[in-house]
C-alpha cells in the first residue's frame, strides 16, 4: 500500500514539476514582451533623448524584417549593410513569395510571433480591420521622420490619429499599361482611349506575331491590379464607394464592374495575354518586355529602368504609359496606399527596429533608393528627391482627372485582394463567371465586416 502511495505521489510530482517548469518558462518568455510596448511608449515620449544612446540596440542585435517578394529592393538590402556597419545592428530580411505572404503574415501576427518589422499594405481601413495596428504595431508618431511622410500617404498609415507605418514605395505611381514605344511606332499604333481601341491595338500586335500583354496570374495579386479600372464605377456614381462602405450597395449587379470583369475575361480568351499568363511570374516582366516577346504589361512608372537593367540595349525612355482602358476608363487611378514597414508590438527589438526605420527615412537613404530603384520616382517623404522622366511626366499630364482606387476608398476590399485573385483565376479557368466573382467579393467583404463587428453589417 505504501508503495502505491509513493508511486502515485511520484507520478503526480513529476507531472506538477513539468507543468510548473512550463509555466515558469512561459512567464519568463512573455514578461519582457509584455513590458516592451510600455517601454516603447516611454521611448516616444522621451523623444529628446538621442536614439544612439539606447541600450538594447547594438552589436548583438539582429532585427528581422519579413516582407512580400518585390517589396524589399536590392538597394534596401545594400542600405541594410550600411546600417549594420554604422550601428552594429544586423538585419535579417525574410522575403516570402507573394502568393503565400498574406496568409503567412496574418498567421504570424495572429499567433503573436511576428518578425520585428513586417511589411504590409497601407490603407486607413485595412490596417485597422486586418492588422489591428493599435494592438499589433508600434506607434511611430513621435519618430523624427514621421513629419516628413506625405500627408496623403500618412492618412493611409494612421489610426486614431497615430502613425503606425512607414511607406516603402513610391505611391505616386499607379498601375497603368506600360508599352514598348518603338514597337508601337513600328506597327503604327497610337495610345488607345477606350476598350474597343485597346482591343484593336492588341489585335494588330497579335497579328505581328507578338503577345500583346504580359500577365502573371501565378503571383496571385498582379492580375487583380486590373480591377483598378473600377474607378469607372466611382466616376459613374461618386457616392458608390460610400454606399459600399455603409453596406447600402453591392459589387454584384454594378454595370461598370460587371463590364470590367467580362472584358478582362475576354482579353484572356482572345489570347491577348498569350498562352502562359497563368504561370508567368511578375519578377520576369521586365525581361519579357526587353525580349520583345511581349508589347505591354500593367506596371507602375519605373518599368523603363527595370527593362533597361534586364537589357542595357533597351533605352529607359522606350517605355510609355496609358491608363487601364477597361470600362473605357480615362481617369488616373490614384492610390496612396502601398507596401509599408510596421514594427511589431511584440518585438523585443523595438528600439533597434526604430533605428532602422529612421535610417531608411534619412535624406541619404531616400536619395539612394530613388537613384537605384527604377520605379521609385518620388518617394512619399518631403525630404525625398523627385526623379520623374519626361515620359512619366507626360503620362501624368495626359490624365488630369484623378480618382481614388477601391483599395483606398472601399472598406474590406484590400484584405480580400488575394481571394479576389483566386476568384479571378477561377474565372480565367471558366470555373466562375464575372457575376459570380462580384457576388463572392460581396461575400468576402461581408465576412470581414461581420468578423470586425462592423455596425453597417449588423
Amino acid at each position, binding site marked *: 500500500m505504501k508503495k502505491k502511495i509513493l508511486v502515485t505521489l511520484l507520478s503526480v510530482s513529476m507531472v506538477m514539476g513539468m507543468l510548473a517548469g512550463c509555466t515558469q518558462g512561459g512567464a519568463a518568455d512573455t514578461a519582457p514582451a509584455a513590458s516592451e510596448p510600455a517601454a516603447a511608449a516611454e521611448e516616444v515620449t522621451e523623444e529628446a533623448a538621442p536614439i544612439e544612446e539606447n541600450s538594447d540596440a547594438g552589436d548583438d542585435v539582429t532585427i528581422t524584417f519579413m516582407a512580400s517578394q518585390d517589396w524589399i529592393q536590392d538597394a534596401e538590402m545594400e542600405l541594410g549593410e550600411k546600417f549594420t556597419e554604422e550601428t552594429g545592428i544586423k538585419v535579417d530580411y525574410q522575403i516570402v513569395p507573394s502568393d503565400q505572404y498574406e496568409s503567412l503574415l496574418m498567421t504570424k501576427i495572429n499567433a503573436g510571433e511576428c518578425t520585428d518589422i513586417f511589411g504590409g499594405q497601407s490603407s486607413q481601413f485595412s490596417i485597422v480591420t486586418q492588422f489591428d495596428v493599435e494592438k499589433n504595431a508600434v506607434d511611430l508618431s513621435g519618430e523624427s521622420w514621421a513629419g516628413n511622410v506625405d500627408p496623403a500617404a500618412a492618412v493611409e498609415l494612421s489610426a486614431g490619429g497615430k502613425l503606425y507605418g512607414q511607406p516603402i514605395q513610391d505611391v505616386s505611381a499607379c498601375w497603368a499599361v506600360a508599352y514598348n514605344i518603338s514597337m508601337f511606332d513600328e506597327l503604327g499604333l497610337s495610345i488607345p482611349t477606350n476598350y474597343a481601341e485597346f482591343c484593336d491595338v492588341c489585335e494588330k500586335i497579335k497579328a505581328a506575331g507578338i503577345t500583346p500583354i504580359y500577365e502573371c496570374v501565378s503571383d496571385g495579386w498582379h492580375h487583380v491590379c486590373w480591377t483598378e479600372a473600377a474607378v469607372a464605377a466611382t466616376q459613374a456614381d461618386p457616392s458608390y464607394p460610400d454606399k459600399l462602405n455603409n453596406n447600402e450597395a453591392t459589387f454584384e449587379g454594378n454595370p461598370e464592374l460587371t463590364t470590367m470583369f467580362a472584358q478582362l475575361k475576354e482579353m484572356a480568351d482572345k489570347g491577348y495575354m498569350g498562352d502562359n499568363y497563368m504561370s508567368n511570374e511578375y519578377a520576369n516582366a521586365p525581361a519579357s518586355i526587353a525580349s520583345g516577346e511581349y508589347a505591354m504589361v500593367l506596371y507602375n512608372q519605373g518599368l523603363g529602368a527595370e527593362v533597361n537593367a534586364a537589357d542595357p540595349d533597351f533605352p529607359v525612355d522606350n517605355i510609355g504609359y496609358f491608363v487601364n482602358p477597361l470600362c473605357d476608363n480615362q481617369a488616373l487611378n490614384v492610390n496612396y496606399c502601398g507596401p509599408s514597414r510596421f514594427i511589431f508590438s511584440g518585438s523585443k527589438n523595438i528600439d533597434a527596429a526604430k533605428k532602422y526605420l529612421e535610417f531608411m527615412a534619412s535624406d541619404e537613404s531616400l536619395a539612394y533608393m530613388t537613384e537605384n530603384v527604377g520605379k521609385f520616382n518620388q518617394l512619399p517623404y518631403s525630404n525625398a528627391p523627385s526623379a520623374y522622366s519626361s515620359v512619366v511626366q507626360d503620362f501624368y499630364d495626359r490624365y488630369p482627372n484623378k480618382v481614388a482606387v477601391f483599395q483606398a476608398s472601399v472598406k474590406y476590399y484590400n*484584405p480580400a485582394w488575394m481571394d479576389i485573385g483566386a476568384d479571378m483565376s477561377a474565372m480565367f479557368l471558366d470555373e466562375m463567371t464575372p457575376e459570380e466573382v462580384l457576388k463572392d467579393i460581396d461575400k468576402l467583404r461581408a465576412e470581414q465586416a461581420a468578423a470586425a463587428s462592423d455596425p453597417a453589417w449588423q
Partner: protein
Amino acid sequence: MNRNKIYPRYFALGALIIYFVFFFLPGLIGVGYSFTDWSAYSDELHYVGFENFKTVFSADENYMKIITNTLEFTLITTVLKNVIGLILALLLTKSIRLLNMHRGIVFMPSVLSTLIIGMIFKSILDPKSGLLNSFFRSVGLEMFAKKWLVTSELAFGSVMAVDIWRGVGYIMTILIAGILSISSDYYEAAAIDGAGGWKKFRYITLPLILPTLATTTVLNVIYGLKVFDMVYALTNGGPGKATTEVLYTAVFKKFGTGQYAVGTALSSVMFVIMIFVGAYMIRVMTKNEVVE
C-alpha cells in the same frame, strides 16, 4: 523475476496525465472553439452552436471540395506509393550491379525538404521554360508538353505525382526491409516444387510482407490526410478557387485571415474523419493477429 507479473494500472498514470494534458485536452479545446465565433477581430467569444459546421458543409462554400480533395489525395498517393514502392523493392532486392547506389537514388528525394522539392518542381513543370516541357519539345513530343500546374484538369494530378515521386523511396526502403526478413528457405522449397516468379510473389512474398504493407499504408494515410507543404509550395491551393486545396492549406488560410472558428471547425471535421479511418485501419490490421 516473475515473468507473469502484471504491473498495476497506476503505472500508466504519469503517461496518461501527460497525454491527457498535452494532447487530448488541447484537441478537446480546439473542438470546443469550433462552436464559437472566435476570430482575430474580437476579444469576445460567443457560443454559436453548429454555425461554423453549417458553413463548412454549406453548398455555397467549397469546403466539401477541399475535404474531397484531401481524401482523394490520400487514397491515390497511398495506393500508388505502395504499388510503386513494392515494385521497386522487389527489383532492388535482386542481385543487380550497384544495388545500393540504385536504392540510394530512389530514396534520395525522401530526405530532401518538401518545400525545396516543391520549389524545384514548380520550375521543372513551368509550361513555357520548364525542364519537362523543354524535354518533350526537344524530342518531338510536343503533344505531351502540358500546363501541368495551372490548369484545373492537370494541377491536382501533377501535385500528387510529385508527392508520389518524393515519398516512394521511403516506402520502398521499408518494404525492402520486410522482403529481406523473409527466410530464403520458403523460396528454395517453392523452387523445388516448381513455382515460378509470380507464384513465389503471390504465395510467399505478398502474404509475408502484408504486416509491412499495413505499416506503410498507415504512414501514407496519416501523411495524406495531413498533407500541407507539398501543396503549399507547388500551387498554394490554386489554380482557381480550390483546385488543389486540401484541409491543412485551407485551415492555414482561415487562420491567416483571422477566422479561427471556421478553421477549428474544419480541423474538427478532419479529426472525425481521422477517427473513422484510424479505427477502420486498426481493425483491418489486427484482424489476423493471434491473441494469446
